[in-house]
């Protein structure tokens, strides 16, 4: 078993046995959507679709922050991080495994949020909802890549929980703009080709941040 799959398997096994992260992420996404429905009281039609797309991405940002923090900070308990760092495990492989775990948890939470969004914003379960998938998956990957790197920093600082959103949210802005635009177009029934430019921005963002995290993780991984 490669080091990558060993760490990922451990994280997934922990999740299957305990199931805390996905439940917490799903619950947080639910709350964000409910709060945004109260805040904007969206009507139906085109405006409703735009509000729904925005709400979905706010939920993604919040659940992503929680997911990455949990994937990294779980290792800080009981000195697990020390054991991982002492093992002959490449730091980059550790990053890839943590990123994959955060991405999977976020993906599950996103699937739940999409269903809840359709219900709360009075949309239909049809092809339009399926067209959300590429943008949301790319966004989740980008945010997981960014937040895993930053969570390794913030989990080792006193008061670090504050630093994570302060750094992650402005850095995520390009993907947020592209994601909201692509999602709104998808929900409004526009063909996927129309959002190609936004999907390209998302792909570029993902490539850049996965590469940056992969290269830079070794400088931030360490003990508390």
């Amino acid at each position, binding site marked *: 078993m490669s080091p990558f799959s060993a760490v990922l398997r451990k994280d997934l096994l922990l999740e299957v046995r305990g199931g805390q992260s996905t439940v917490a992420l799903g619950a947080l996404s639910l709350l964000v959507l409910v709060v945004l429905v109260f805040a904007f009281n969206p009507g139906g039609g085109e405006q409703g679709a735009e509000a729904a797309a925005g709400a979905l991405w706010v939920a993604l940002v919040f659940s992503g922050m929680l997911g990455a923090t949990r994937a990294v900070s779980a290792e800080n308990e009981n000195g697990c991080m020390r054991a991982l760092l002492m093992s002959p495990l490449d730091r980059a492989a550790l990053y890839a495994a943590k990123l994959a775990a955060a991405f999977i948890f976020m993906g599950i939470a996103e699937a739940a949020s999409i269903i809840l969004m359709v219900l709360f914003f009075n949309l239909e379960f049809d092809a339009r909802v399926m067209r959300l998938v590429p943008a949301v998956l790319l966004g989740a990957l980008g945010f997981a890549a*960014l937040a895993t*790197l*930053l969570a390794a*920093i913030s989990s*080792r*600082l*006193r*008061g*670090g929980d*504050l*630093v994570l959103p*302060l*750094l992650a*949210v*402005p*850095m995520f*802005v*390009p*993907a947020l*703009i*592209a994601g909201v*635009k692509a999602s709104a177009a998808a929900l409004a029934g526009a063909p996927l080709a129309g959002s190609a*430019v*936004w999907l390209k*921005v998302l792909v*570029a*963002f993902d490539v*850049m*941040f996965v590469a*940056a995290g992969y290269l*830079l993780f070794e*400088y*931030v991984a*360490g003990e508390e």
Partner: protein
Amino acid sequence: MSGRGVRLGLGLVAGALMLVALYMVFVYVPTEADQGIVQRIFYFHVPCAWVAFVSFALVAIAGIFYLWLGQQVWDDLGYAAAETGMVFCTLVLVTGSIWAKPIWGAWWTWDSRLTTTLILWLLYGGYLMLRAMAGDSEQGARFGAVVGIVAAIDVPIVIVSVRLWRTIHPAVLVTRQGGHGLEDPRMVATLLVSLAAFTALFIWLLCLRFVTLRMHTRLNALTRSLALAEAAAQDT
């Protein structure tokens, strides 16, 4: 010439250039026909933006060298550049708002350049918060270097995405391109002198901050070795 002499010289050059720039901005340059007196803030606004961008590029370059060579001097440079750049980035936003109110009729619009500058300001605000929380440790320096590099990677894609965001949507107000033709050669001269003055001011401030951080690093090292020596003396 000693370091102190260099700094004094830099300060004098910056001060003299700034006086010339002030004279040119308020007396020498003709008032712009369409916008009137407000346009003069442009000669402060653009140099501030230039200096802010330079300093944020410096943060990333210093971060790369710090991670590569591991010398504290690179981190001191990066930290000093971030702090100085933040001052000028704030000035860009403030002078821009003061100009926008009479010309655009609003303090703020989500124009692509404004949005990009705001994101930049937020990014480096986050960097400074991180540095303040990490304290002056080797760990804080490493975290700062990583965040500085990642932020610099982020900037091009922020620019692209914000531009796409604003051009696909019709802009509420016309872009500023029409306003700044700089038809008069005196306007160009004033802008160039202002740029020189602000660059000199930036280098001077950066030097002061950098020297302070260097002294701080040395003081920390001395305190550590003193504590070690005391502990060794107690042992014997």
